[in-house]
């Protein structure tokens, strides 16, 4: 049997004289120290561990040896065939570019890119080039291959040769681009092409070699694009690092703070009224001070180590930061104290030989505590994005070859049919092909009421199926899903810069060195003009100025509020593209609302049924719907749906005939029905009576009336209209309350437009505007000196959205990344506009509070620390107070930003 194993060695290993360990598969030099004789055969092992494993369950390993089958696709000199999916092929000329690029590689026999299937078929000489180089060539041509990265845990590796073996086997599997196995972390990172090999197949390859695979915390889709890779970097790991840092800082804080108690006690023996033996000048106190000097070493260089490393790293880069200030401050206090303890004689007066160990201990303790608290608070600030990432489903139940199989979400491809049961998460975006249900989409749209979904309706990935089961076809997967785009947009916005931040950037570049200079000049001033003992005062002032200054509060003020604000928006279905959008949104004067689809539903529905000549409403509607069932006119659908909503019977119509420009006629239940406009009625000489007047009234309200005649007698009017969304009127009232001029823009005639405007409370109506002139009208408003927002559907209104200072796109379902918009409202309601404006106002207010706080704090704190109040009030800050103030100033900024998390729209 061993011979068999040997024969399966790859060609280049054939000359190797060793044998294979049946447990881990590594090569063992025979004779080995570890062996087992079984059934007359000797099995040798690399280690005692493997030997024991084999002894416990020899059959498992023997079976495995039998099962090992070569998975090499070709001989080392053969031709290899490769199919690679390519992303982003937009034109046929791209095909040539890619083909040319691939053909430049050595050993390429065939290179063919199929535009329709977005796949590259390459045949190449194995050994002359490899998959990785081909992917590189495609990348060089400017395209990405559809490549995924898999992180897999592997158990049972004991040695370096296991690593090479697994890597080699993986790399030789079709579809695997690269594999890197790490013995230390017991894991492998595998780049593969999802269509060619599945995660399970990859696992099988490893399992076959005798190792056990397990899923690590992050089996994540990491498309080739590096930026994606960065965002897909497991959040947990960062969270863990943050948690660890927090714990370390807390330990450092506790250590420093415990030691600071005796330091405070013995630094001011007269203040606490200690016994005479402990008073200044006594030998005992001197020894205590020496002890404190020793204890201060771990405080400075362990508890406060980050100040020194941070300061030094910054210094090397010719920059200075908070660490520079703290490190300089405590070092000055410490050096002075050490000199005072060890060489009190060098001071001209005994009074000068004072110690400031308490300053070192307390400042280190407090600033470290501040840093720890900041980590905690900041963790909360980024909760929104973490929640979004956490929304993603892990697996999908897909129908393949008639079987339902559970696969990781990364392997779902376009057009997969996915089955969703009640209570399950919908894994990707798609369209229902079978079944119906209600779906809770609140996590994406912010809409709390579950939405009914039927065949043909769109479902959004990460939303939760409530009641029924259904099957849907995947229309967007991977980074194209609504959720992935939302996450990307939120992350981008959070890292963007609000214009207000530029002021801060200008200041912060000069801040720290300026503080150092102020500290030096304060020292000089106090030394020259200050009261006795000058040196002591000068030193205290120097240290206090350095310690109180807080560049962190300044630097944090804007980004932290932006992060919370943008995250809060995402929670409510409002996607803000950038900090700039947020800042502009709160300065708006005027808001232009597109009528169709924004104020109104965007599709007609039945509004009125008026009867005459004794016909009943139900008869009129039911018969009309029966006629219209055969019609393809959009208004017809509204009538049919209206009848369905009232649960009326819809019958089959005979002799259906459409009279262009007039209406339709048909027979239902042997009754002759005419349905159409005035012209239609006149054509068939139907006496309308008062109906004509009523029809005009309906038209004035912006509705489309249609006359119905049954058996040559006027039966009534059915009116259809693009109805106003239920909350439009309320939202517009709120917009007005926010001080905005609300303008409606529409292509409708002014009569209809004014009617709608009146109903929703808009005074300024721009009617009969051609779609292409919408942008021009927005510009006209801007020329009036106004900051204008445009709200529209993002497709027809794109130019107007782009022209406006702020373009708000009302998205529908999964189309969230609307390029022209600065803000996207996932939920179709106008209330989102109100919310977006209120949120941006709240966020900007928060940023301003933070900035004011930070500037005010530093602007006031530094002069006071420098002793500005001393000549007038005899007031001088203690460095201890300065340390406390500094520690809590940045925590205050973060805490203030976190207040935004409680933001609620005032609706």
């Amino acid at each position, binding site marked *: 049997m061993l011979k068999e194993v040997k024969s399966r060695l790859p060609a280049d290993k054939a000359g190797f004289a060793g044998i294979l360990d049946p447990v881990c598969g590594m090569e063992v030099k025979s004779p080995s120290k570890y062996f087992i004789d079984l059934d007359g055969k000797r099995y040798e092992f690399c280690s005692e561990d493997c030997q024991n494993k084999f002894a416990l369950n020899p059959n498992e390993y023997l079976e495995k040896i039998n099962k090992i089958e070569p998975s090499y696709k070709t001989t080392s000199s053969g031709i290899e065939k490769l199919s690679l999916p390519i992303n982003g092929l937009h034109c046929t000329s791209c095909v040539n570019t890619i083909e040319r690029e691939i053909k430049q590689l050595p050993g390429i026999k065939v290179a063919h890119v199929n535009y329709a299937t977005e796949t590259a078929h390459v045949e190449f000489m194995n050994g002359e080039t490899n998959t990785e180089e081909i992917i590189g060539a495609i990348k060089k041509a400017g395209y990405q291959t559809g490549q995924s990265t898999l992180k897999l845990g592997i158990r049972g590796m004991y040695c370096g040769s296991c690593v090479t073996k697994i890597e080699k086997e993986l790399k030789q599997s079709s579809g695997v681009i690269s594999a890197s196995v790490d013995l230390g972390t017991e894991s492998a990172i595998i780049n593969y092409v999802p269509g060619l090999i599945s995660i399970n197949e990859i696992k099988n390859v490893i399992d076959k070699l005798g190792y056990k695979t397990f899923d690590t915390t992050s089996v994540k889709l990491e498309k080739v694009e590096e930026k994606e890779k960065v965002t897909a970097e497991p959040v947990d790991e*960062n969270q863990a690092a*943050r948690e660890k840092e927090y714990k370390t800082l807390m330990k450092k804080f506790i250590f420093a703070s415990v030691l600071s108690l005796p330091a405070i006690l013995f630094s001011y023996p007269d203040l606490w009224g200690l016994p005479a033996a402990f008073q200044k000048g006594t030998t005992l106190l001197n020894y205590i001070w020496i002890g404190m000097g020793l204890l201060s070493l771990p405080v400075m260089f362990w508890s406060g180590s980050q100040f020194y490393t*941070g300061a030094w790293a*910054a210094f*090397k880069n010719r920059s200075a930061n908070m660490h520079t200030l703290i490190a300089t401050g405590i070092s000055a206090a410490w050096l002075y104290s050490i000199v005072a303890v060890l060489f009190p004689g060098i001071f001209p007066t005994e009074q000068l030989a004072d110690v400031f160990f308490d300053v070192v201990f307390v400042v280190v303790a407090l600033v470290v505590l501040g840093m720890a608290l900041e980590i905690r608070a900041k963790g909360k600030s980024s909760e929104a994005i973490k929640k979004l990432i956490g929304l993603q489903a892990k697996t999908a139940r897909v129908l393949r070859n008639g079987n339902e199989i559970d696969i990781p979400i990364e392997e779902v491809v376009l057009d997969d049919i996915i089955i969703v049961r009640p209570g399950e998460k919908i894994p990707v975006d798609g369209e229902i092909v079978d079944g119906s249900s209600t779906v809770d989409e609140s996590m994406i749209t912010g809409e709390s009421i579950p939405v009914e979904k039927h065949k043909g309706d769109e479902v959004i990935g990460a939303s939760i199926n409530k009641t029924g089961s259904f099957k849907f076809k995947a229309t967007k997967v991977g980074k194209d899903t609504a959720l992935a785009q939302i996450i990307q947009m939120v992350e*981008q916005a959070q*890292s963007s810069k609000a214009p207000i931040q530029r002021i801060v*950037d200008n200041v912060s570049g000069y801040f720290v060195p300026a503080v150092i200079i102020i500290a030096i000049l304060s020292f000089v001033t106090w030394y*020259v003009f200050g009261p006795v003992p000058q040196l002591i005062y000068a030193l205290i002032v120097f240290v206090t100025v350095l310690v109180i200054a807080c560049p962190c509060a300044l630097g*944090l003020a804007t980004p932290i509020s932006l992060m919370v604000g943008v995250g809060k928006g995402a929670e409510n279905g409002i996607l803000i593209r950038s900090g700039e959008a947020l800042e502009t949104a709160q300065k708006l004067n005027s808001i232009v609302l597109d009528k169709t689809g924004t104020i109104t539903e965007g599709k007609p529905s039945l509004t009125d049924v008026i009867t005459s000549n004794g016909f009943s409403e139900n008869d009129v509607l039911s018969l009309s719907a029966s006629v219209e069932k055969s019609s393809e006119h959009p208004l017809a659908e509204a009538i049919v749906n209206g009848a369905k909503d009232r649960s009326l019977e819809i019958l089959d119509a005979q002799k259906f005939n459409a009279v262009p420009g007039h209406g339709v006629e048909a027979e239902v239940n042997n009754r002759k029905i005419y349905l159409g406009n005035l012209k239609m009625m006149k054509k068939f000489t139907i006496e309308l009576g008062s109906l004509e007047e009523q029809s005009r009234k309906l038209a004035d309200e912006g509705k489309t009336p249609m006359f119905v005649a049954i058996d040559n007698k006027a039966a009534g009017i059915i009116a259809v209209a693009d109805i106003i969304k239920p909350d439009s009127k309320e939202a517009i009232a709120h917009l007005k309350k926010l001080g905005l001029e609300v303008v409606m823009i529409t292509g409708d005639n002014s009569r209809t437009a004014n009617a709608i405007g009146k109903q929703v409370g808009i005074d300024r109506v721009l009617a009969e505007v051609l779609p292409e002139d919408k942008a021009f009208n927005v510009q006209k408003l801007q020329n009036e000196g106004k900051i204008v927002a445009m709200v529209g559907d993002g497709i027809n209104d794109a130019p107007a959205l782009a022209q406006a200072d702020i373009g708000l796109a009302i998205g529908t379902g999964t189309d969230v990344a609307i390029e022209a918009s600065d803000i996207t409202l996932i939920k179709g309601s106008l209330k989102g506009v109100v919310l977006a404006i209120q949120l941006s106002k709240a966020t900007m207010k928060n940023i301003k509070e933070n900035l004011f706080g930070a500037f005010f704090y530093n602007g006031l704190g530094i002069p006071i620390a420098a002793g500005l109040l001393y000549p007038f009030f005899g007031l001088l800050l203690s460095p201890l107070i300065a340390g406390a103030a500094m520690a809590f100033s940045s925590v205050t900024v973060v805490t203030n930003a976190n207040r935004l998390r409680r933001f609620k729209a005032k609706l």
Partner: protein
Amino acid sequence: MLLDQILVIIGGLALSTWVAWYFWFSEKEAVKIQTAEGGIQEAVIKVKGGYTPDVLIFEAGKPIKLNFIREETAACSEEVIFSDLNKKATLTPFKTIPIELNIDKPGEYGFQCGMGMLKGKLIIE
């Protein structure tokens, strides 16, 4: 005025001048990144209390790959933000986090940590 006071004044002013010169006016050392085979300009940036190197020169129009390695757990450097480019990355400690950029327009593009304490810039020529 006593001698020690005069010395302190001179010393203080000299030190202040030096601080101003060192942090504000002295030339920072910039590292020019060579284009590697395949047209990618790749650089490794160590993150520890600062970015090393912190001023990098690249050529415009060619893909840039920055490999950030954060060699500390201090929370300050957790994020790196390229605000002009709307890019952000969370740097997991002791891991190489690549950021790929493609900048066509010459100019200076700053990057910084989450709160702007650590700074660096890319000079695109």
